[in-house]
């Protein structure tokens, strides 16, 4: 590796999705973008500012970006109805910043209320000394447990911004307050530090997302890989001595991977509790009906719905499922009931 390349790497903005990467393994770079796979590390330069005016750094803070800035990101797809749909494809002349957490790819659809994607010019694909492309999968957390023992409370929702992350964080907070050693995990989505940091702020003992399982995004990944990623996160939680996990599943019930997981008998068997976040009573009724179609019923409803006593009453009447607000979820008495229902085994206050 030349000194110039070393300088180039050192001065680049390493995005949040690359936080697990061992930079000492970077030995070179190629321009075989046609071979780029999801998770491959890409050095790119900002060419034109669009929707994203800043990126999320691995340190956990934002950084403004300017044309000419060097950024290290991971090639990946993105599914975000509020923003973009993008594929894990990189054209040599230009690419799109699909997510500020550090996802580079090709935008194929855009919510009309937002700007064009910030444009990037890919410089190269980072390589190991043996010439192989460096991929996030190489840096997935190492585990020894099987991940099949820890009780899991899954959090689904009707859509982006329906309240899933708040529900996940607040339930993790309640469990921690009740004395449980808890893991707050994000099983699917696109790598970003917003949810991750919100989980961390609760004092959850383990916080991790699919990036820790080697993926910058789970969009368009095969179900087996998504399931294996979740299992890896659960094994990581078990290795750390966690007694219970709260697992957020991104986007709405009809999103590709979310729908696959919901319909997956193995995943259904693996979860011991289910929280459903929704915005209003109609969404609650539709979502619960869809879940029932797959043979599962949420234990509670939450989300924006819970802010309105009237909407909550409507939802309870329509579904028969109780509605809890975020303060209920963070209440140790309520969270403890979740833990007891899920069969969590008490060892000692964490």
């Amino acid at each position, binding site marked *: 590796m030349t000194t110039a390349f070393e300088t180039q790497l050192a001065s680049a903005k390493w995005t949040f999705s690359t936080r697990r990467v061992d930079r000492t393994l970077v030995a070179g770079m190629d321009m075989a973008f046609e071979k780029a796979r999801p998770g491959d590390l890409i050095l790119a330069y900002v060419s034109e500012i669009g929707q994203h005016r800043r990126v999320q750094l691995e340190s956990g803070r934002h950084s403004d970006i300017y044309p000419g800035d060097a950024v290290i990101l991971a090639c990946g797809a993105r599914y975000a109805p509020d923003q973009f749909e993008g594929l894990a494809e990189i054209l040599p002349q230009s690419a799109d910043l699909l997510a500020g957490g550090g996802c580079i790819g090709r935008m194929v659809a855009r919510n009309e209320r937002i700007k064009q994607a910030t444009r990037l010019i890919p410089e190269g694909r980072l390589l190991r000394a043996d010439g192989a492309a460096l991929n996030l999968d190489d840096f997935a957390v190492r585990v020894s447990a099987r991940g099949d023992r820890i009780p899991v409370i899954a959090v689904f929702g009707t859509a982006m911004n329906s309240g899933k992350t708040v529900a996940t964080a607040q339930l993790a907070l309640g469990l921690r*307050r*009740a*004395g449980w050693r808890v893991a707050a995990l994000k099983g699917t989505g696109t790598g970003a530090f917003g949810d991750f940091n919100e989980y961390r702020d609760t004092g959850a003992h383990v916080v991790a997302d699919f990036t820790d399982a080697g993926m910058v995004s789970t969009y368009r990944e095969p179900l087996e890989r998504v399931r294996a990623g979740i299992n890896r996160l659960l094994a990581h939680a078990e290795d750390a001595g966690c007694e219970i996990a709260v697992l957020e599943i991104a986007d709405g019930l009809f999103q590709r991977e979310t729908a696959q997981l919901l319909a997956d008998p193995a995943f259904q068997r693996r979860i011991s509790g289910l929280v459903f976040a929704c915005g209003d009573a109609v969404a609650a009724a539709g979502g619960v009906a869809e879940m029932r179609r797959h043979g599962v019923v949420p234990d509670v409803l939450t989300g924006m719905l819970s802010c309105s006593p009237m909407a909550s009453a409507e939802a309870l009447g329509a579904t028969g499922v*109780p509605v*809890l607000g975020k303060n*209920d979820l963070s*209440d*140790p*008495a*309520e969270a*403890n*009931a979740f833990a*007891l*229902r899920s069969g969590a085994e*008490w060892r*000692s*206050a*964490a």
Partner: protein
Amino acid sequence: MELELETPTTGSTVERISIATQAGPLATFVITPRRMVSSRPLVVLHGISRNARSLVRHFRAEAEHGGRLIVLPHFTASHWPHFQRPGHPARADQALVELLNRLAIRFPDCGGRVDLVGHSGGAQLAHRTAMLYPQRIARLSLVAAGWYCLPDMSMPYPYGLGESNARGAALWIRRKQTGLAAYLGLKIRVYVGSRDTERDPALRVSSALDDLQGRNRHDRARTYVDAVRAAALGHGRVADIALIELPGCGHDFELAITEAGLARMVAETSDMTPALAAAG
């Protein structure tokens, strides 16, 4: 954590610790014996007289005798005008759990199961807290509670687990129902003075309560023990519960300690106390 150390005059050390909790600040006395033998801490909850400081005097000898850590929370009137029943006005259960979590940093055994004792209003808090967090309790000793949350549907919440219009009732009923099977598996000892039959102003009175739980603390203790036994049978198990009558005692906790040896009974790690053996 604010800490005030009392100069040791005997083998044990008494500290007064104040912690901030989500539910409000909570002070507590912690008695550490010179030589720790038992691994299970004992938590003692005062009643509405809030006599935690006086109870320290009585339980200090028990800490030494049993070689166990004894924790006496002090729900002060200024911060805890209501502490007996977890609910909208106050969440003493949260404060208690948070206290144990915090103490576990210094005293790891506080993170495991503890023995919980409560007198009068403290017994109300004790059994309700144990219903919510049964996994944190090893032995529950209830001394002369004024009334109980029966572990069945015979009375509406908060007197039982039946439906009620009380604020938040559905939430609380569901939480307690969730932990009920584990609660009914706890070792529970119910103590009451043979002369604790006064209907004093502190005793909650209503026709429904009188009819279904009894007219005084003595009768209500017996009703509660029967209710726990029946509920446990309904869950397919035999309850480990006993009623221990304290001969000649009224409602005064300190008198029951000095005259009937109650502190020794509730602090004894072996269950084969003479009183228990006599209880039948």
